[in-house]
């Protein structure tokens, strides 16, 4: 992702992603608050505009980690490892956002902050796997072995993502099924709400891209300090 030979500061594309993302964030929030309330849940459903993009970006980020971990194992280029690391870290942040907003949403709708139903359990496991990813990285000193071991976690841990995504369909769970079903392509949602959701998704994606590029640059600087 980083093409410059001596990256000292973020390149233009990183700034564009970050700037656009930050600029559009209030617009997304405005759209979310202006969207029509839900039939059953009323205004409460608006937390969806943070919850769903957070979860999606978490999944996407872990997928990117999976991809770059594979690339690292077969190409042995440290750049891939840095991108995998950056994506896992940002993914953890987005997943955390999804978990926290989910808990805030669960309290008024289900009556509890947390319950051990399949979706929540699999998501919590997913979160734990990637926390483990960073524990591992912190524990190994040899950069090459660290990258290899981390790549293996990035690959083996990814299996939890489809399980977490499909858990609402496989088990009869308390968590509602997807409103935008990626496996069948069906959308069960009012167009006005859908627009706001997709716009927020776009904003989150921009932020994700910016953050990952930024974090990968930090990883370059870290690696250079480690060598020095």
């Amino acid at each position, binding site marked *: 992702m980083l093409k410059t030979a001596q990256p000292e500061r973020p390149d233009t594309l990183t700034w564009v992603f970050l700037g656009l993302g930050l600029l559009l964030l209030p617009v997304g929030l405005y759209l979310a608050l202006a969207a029509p309330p839900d039939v059953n849940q009323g205004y409460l459903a608006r937390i969806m505009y943070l919850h769903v993009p957070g979860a999606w970006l978490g999944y996407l980020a872990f997928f990117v980690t999976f991809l770059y971990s594979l690339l690292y*194992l*077969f190409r*042995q280029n440290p750049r891939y490892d840095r991108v995998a690391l950056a994506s896992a870290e940002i993914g953890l942040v987005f997943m955390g956002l999804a978990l926290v907003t989910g808990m805030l949403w669960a309290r008024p709708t289900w009556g509890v902050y947390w319950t051990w139903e399949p979706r929540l*359990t*699999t998501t919590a*496991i997913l979160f*734990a*796997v990637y*926390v*483990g*990813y960073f*524990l*591992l990285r912190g*524990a*190994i000193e*040899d950069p090459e*072995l660290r990258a*290899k*071991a981390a790549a*293996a*976690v990035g*690959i*083996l*841990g990814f*299996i*939890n993502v489809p*399980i977490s995504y499909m858990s609402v369909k496989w*088990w009869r769970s308390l968590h509602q099924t997807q409103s935008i079903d990626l496996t069948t392509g069906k959308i069960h949602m009012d167009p006005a709400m859908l627009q706001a959701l997709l716009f927020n998704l776009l904003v989150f994606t921009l932020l994700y891209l910016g953050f990952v590029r930024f974090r990968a640059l930090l990883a370059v600087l870290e690696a250079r300090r480690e060598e020095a």
Partner: protein
Amino acid sequence: MRAPRVGKAVQAPGRDGEGMGAVRRIWLLAWRDLRLEVRDRAGLLSVLAFFSVMLFIMALALGPEEEPLRRAAPGVLWVALAFGSTLLSTRAFALEVEDGTLDDLLLTPGGKEWIYFGKLLFQMFLLLPLSLLALLMAAGLFYLPLDRLLPLFLTLLLGVLGYTSVATFYAGLLARLRGREVLLPLLLFSLVVPVVLAAVRATLGLVEGLPLEEVQNWWQLLLVFDVVYLTASALLFPVVLEG
């Protein structure tokens, strides 16, 4: 005590041009490791001691009423299994590294997957009887009904397989690292949590007398994890070990 040289055995029976088949190699490797482990006994005894101490303490802490003990039993059993087996999993490669035979293994011609499967088989041979013993101990201390022994054994088999598939992989990856005994559990637990969870739920279902169809869901999940972890580990193992 020296490990028997595998290199010599490779040339001996040679049925086809490439030496012996992968299945025979896997079997020989597992058998050799098992013999070394049984002769040594230190590893086996430490795991057994760990199981009994842990089960005793938990039974003491949660008892003496029968009902809460029985409900807690599957969780305690699987936590004991997960923690206890990490004591063993580093041993799969510890001797190879000590005696310098890991390089000999890697020098054998052909693919490297068989090393992984041999070590996996070795771990299964060790852990299955041990987990069965732990199950019996738990049955005694936690009022666990054993009338569905066969389904319980199937759960043990699936759970232990899922666990060892990842454990063997990481044991190989970290074989040459100094702090491997500390690192391995750290790595393993986050990845093994889904397997342990599914195994606990399956065991709980069996203990509470749920119909087998309901337990089947958890078996299926376990099977999915086993297959995925096994294939992914077997494919990645040569890449990780050689590079």
